[in-house]
């Protein structure tokens, strides 16, 4: 089904622009056009379809559901909901506090918040389209595992000690009256949405997400195309292709100052992998770019003390490094 985009890109680059496939420019432009057209088409169609299905899911429902769950299931569900629930990163503080004041343990809330930027429907679609289903499954499993284990670890070290005092009090109050349901939910009617309502939601959602991510796609694919066309063939492979151990922490470090969302980074992943960068190193780099960003962490300062922020940050960096090493060690065996 993706052949259409390949044909379109070939026609535009080689027939209309008259570039030769043998030149760097022709190669890079061809890659750019194919990926951008494919990604844009996928985004609009699939976001709409997925939004139709999940029109009735929102963070309030997730909170009420998680508040009733046992801890063990909580990490898994927190992380799973993080993957499928859409919310704007500017909402992460209210979401954190909303979960906390409902008495949900910090670790489960963090499982939700860590997984959320790593996995979303757009990321999954792009991975399927660009790198195939095996890699997609791997990415989703690893992303959720990082969220779950990270959350579990935060509860084991009793991270709630290092919340800002008002958040800690809200957590205590929440745990005391967990059974008294005091949810200020505005959308009780949403479980029985009519089709026109769903269509309206999905349409707005598709336009909204597309409006937000299209520039990331252009930037991401642009960088990918530049790598593809201008980094000499085999350079990455011969310098980093063996998965040298230090290349993974280096990739994680490199990802910290870079900030992108999953949509922008996936086309870069594609290009890196095709150029021979080992899967583990690539994954470490991309997860670090997406999930460990300074602006996000500065926001979290409102609800966490420095010590907890530092722990969380180190936790992410260590996990991504481990992910990279494990994958580099196991890929040759697959």
């Amino acid at each position, binding site marked *: 089904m993706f052949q259409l985009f390949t044909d379109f890109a070939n026609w535009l680059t080689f027939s209309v622009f008259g570039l030769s496939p043998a030149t760097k420019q022709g190669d890079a432009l061809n890659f750019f056009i194919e990926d951008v057209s494919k990604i844009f088409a996928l985004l609009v169609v699939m976001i709409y379809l997925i939004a139709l299905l999940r029109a009735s899911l929102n*963070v309030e429902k997730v909170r009420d559901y998680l508040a009733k769950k046992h801890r063990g299931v909580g990490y898994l569900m927190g992380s799973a909901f993080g993957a499928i629930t859409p919310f704007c990163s*500017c909402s992460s503080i209210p979401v954190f*506090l*909303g979960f906390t*004041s409902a008495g949900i343990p910090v670790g489960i809330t963090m499982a939700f918040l860590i997984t959320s930027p790593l996995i979303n429907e757009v990321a999954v679609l792009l991975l399927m389209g660009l790198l195939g289903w095996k890699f997609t499954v791997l990415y989703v499993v690893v992303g959720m595992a990082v969220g779950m284990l990270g959350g579990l670890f935060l509860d084991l070290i009793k991270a709630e000690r290092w919340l800002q005092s008002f*958040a800690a009090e809200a957590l205590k109050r929440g745990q005391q009256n967990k059974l008294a349901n005091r949810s200020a939910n505005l959308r009780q009617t949403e479980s029985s949405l009519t089709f026109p309502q769903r269509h309206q939601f999905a349409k707005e959602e598709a336009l909204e997400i597309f409006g937000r991510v299209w520039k990331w796609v252009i930037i991401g694919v642009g960088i990918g195309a530049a790598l593809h066309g201008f980094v000499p063939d085999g350079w990455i492979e011969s310098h980093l292709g063996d998965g040298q151990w230090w290349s993974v922490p280096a990739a994680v470090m490199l990802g910290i100052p870079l900030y992108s969302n999953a949509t922008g980074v996936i086309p870069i992943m594609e290009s890196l992998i095709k150029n021979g960068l080992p899967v583990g190193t690539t994954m470490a780099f991309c997860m670090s770019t997406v999930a460990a960003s300074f602006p996000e962490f500065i926001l979290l300062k409102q609800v966490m003390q420095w010590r907890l922020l530092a722990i969380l940050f180190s936790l992410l960096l260590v996990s991504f490094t481990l992910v990279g090493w494990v994958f580099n060690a196991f890929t040759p065996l697959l």
Partner: protein
Amino acid sequence: MKNIKVLGSGCNKCSKTAEIIEEIAHELNIAVSVTKETSAEVIMDYGVMSTPAVVIDEQLVHSGSIPHRDQIVAMLS
């Protein structure tokens, strides 16, 4: 005079929400005072998790998006 608060951590959508409410109130000749509330603690006290949210005279009336025109008209009347 209606006392309106727009809750949100200061993102683009929140300023837009405040602006559009003021605009429509002005058109409808309704006296309002619109303030933006960015404190995480206050937002939590209203039980809001998706911003921007709108509070009119201490009643939470909307959350999670920039309200549509007809929603705003309904809120104000």
